[in-house]
């Protein structure tokens, strides 16, 4: 939105009013302090309940649990983490999710392209696709618990087509993909809306020119849309990854509880279990710190890769 767009209210010429004079005389000190007073609540809350806990948590991850409560133990917690099969499963699952990431970004990207190109019904699709994104993971998980049950409706439909029943949430090789699929179902509308906002900044004459030159749809996507939306694509990659790493707790909690055979652990679920069930807060803090590092690495790596790809294009 250009700053000049909003009309500037026309004010009468300033006349020295008693009220104004008082305000200005009371001025200097309170006026100098005003900005600080205005930001104070936000700063206090964020420092006290976000930054301070972050420092505490990192510090805490170098202390012990149980008998060694509060004692410095160096890197012991991190060694324990790396040896813990549960945490390893969690890391393996992070790897799987990273591999799924391009799909989770491409689907909303393509759909946004078609909506932008005014596929019949595009107005309705925008609203419909976004709708699961407003539902809580808990509700989504509960609904899919019903649908994906072994004797549930989804398998019933598959049976009609002649496909055998799949134990979506009970088979250790399948469950994590089922949960990730449900997550993508629930959140692709979010990325879609972000893509559409990116399209609003794309110069439509470029696409028209490509069409006049006889470019096919895939060619237009590759040479016009992708380079034109580099920033949006970067943003969606990073936010989708953050979503996969930090907003699947509700689904896991409701759909699998980490099972079957502990195959659907993710770092966030591991932290929750260590803190809540096993009462090992220091170990949980170490896992938190590890998750933070993973997110930093993934974020930086993605930005690096995409930036290089952007330059080549």
């Amino acid at each position, binding site marked *: 939105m250009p700053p000049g767009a909003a009309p*500037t*209210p026309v*004010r009468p010429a*300033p006349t020295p*009013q008693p*009220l*104004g004079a008082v*305000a200005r005389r*009371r001025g200097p000190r*309170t*006026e100098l302090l*005003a900005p*600080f*007073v*205005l*930001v104070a609540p*936000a700063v206090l*809350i*964020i420092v*006290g*309940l*976000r930054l*301070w806990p972050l420092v*505490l*948590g990192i510090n805490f991850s170098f202390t012990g649990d149980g008998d060694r409560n509060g004692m410095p133990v160096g890197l012991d917690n991190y060694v324990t983490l790396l040896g813990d099969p549960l945490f390893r499963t969690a890391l393996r699952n992070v790897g799987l999710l990273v591999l799924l990431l391009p799909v989770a970004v491409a689907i909303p990207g393509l*759909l946004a392209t078609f909506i932008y190109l005014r*596929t*019949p*019904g595009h107005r309705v699709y*925008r609203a419909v*696709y*976004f*709708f699961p994104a*407003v539902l809580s993971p*808990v*509700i989504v998980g*509960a609904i*899919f618990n*019903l649908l994906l049950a072994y004797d549930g409706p989804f398998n019933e439909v598959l049976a009609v087509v002649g496909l055998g029943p799949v134990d979506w949430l009970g088979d250790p090789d399948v469950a994590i993909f089922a949960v990730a699929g449900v997550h993508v179902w629930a959140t692709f509308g979010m990325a879609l*809306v972000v893509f*559409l*906002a*990116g399209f609003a*900044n794309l110069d439509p004459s470029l696409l028209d020119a490509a069409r006049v030159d006889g470019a096919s*749809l895939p060619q237009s996507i590759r040479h016009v849309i992708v380079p034109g939306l580099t920033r*949006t694509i970067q943003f969606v990659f990073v936010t989708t990854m*953050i979503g996969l790493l930090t907003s699947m707790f*509700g689904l896991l909690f*409701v759909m699998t509880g980490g099972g079957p055979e502990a195959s659907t652990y993710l770092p*966030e679920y591991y*932290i929750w279990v260590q*803190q*809540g069930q096993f009462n090992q807060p220091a170990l*949980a*803090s170490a896992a*938190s*710190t590890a*998750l*933070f590092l993973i*997110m930093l690495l993934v974020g930086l790596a993605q930005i690096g890769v995409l930036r290089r790809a952007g330059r080549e294009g």
Partner: protein
Amino acid sequence: MAGRRWTRWVVAIPMAALALATVYPLVFTANVAMKTRREYVLDRFSLSDAPRWDNIASAWTSVGMSRYFLNSAVVVTCSVALLLLFGSMAGFALARLRFRGSSALYLGFLAALFIPFQVIMVPLTRVLAGTGLVDTYPGLVLAYVAQFLPFTVFLMTSYYSTVPAEVVDAARIDGNTAFGVYWRIMLPMGVPALISVGVLNALFCWNDVLIALLVMPSAEHRTLMVGVTSLRGQYSDDIPVFASGVLVAAVPVLVVYLFLQRQIADGVSAGATKG
């Protein structure tokens, strides 16, 4: 030209199928909620011949959904009110007042945006426990405010940056203090952004389960989403009542979405285009 129209329709069919796949799970759940247990076991897909509201009624009363619903409503209302107040105050100061360290402070808020809750959940619970705030409404409200404040400050700052500086200057010349400008000019001018950010925050808080589980452990303090998670164990053999509970929890969000779709989408995309 004909070929182009043809491809358009080839795309339109999978898109329609996907739209159906997006809506159907909830329609299915709503239909199940209207069935008797017998009807559900016999045929999952058929429309229930007569809507049975008694499932809804029993989810509402005997499961305690009404209590959970009230808990959620109170916590979400207080959290959103505080978020909008603190967020708009800080946003105005960062966008339109010059003071020492303002840009460093803005970067600090941005950095706080990238600390996921999972990373601080153990120490945060300890900090809250240390101040006696665990298992209290103020504790949960504070946890939500802390969680969503960086995002709120960020969006309010970028919104207030689009308000022309002349507006602020004119109000100052009229004799307003900084607080007067905030209260009389910026707050009313910020309404469109406040609605958008407020609705998003309300959804975030209403839909959360992890923070609520940690900060409000006892049963009578459960929020609605925590209540839904406990439905599964209790009603695993009575699917229609289970579905009713899920439906009751989803309906407020659906109503909000129906009326405020634009504002929600605007809030989501504002985060992307301004970042």
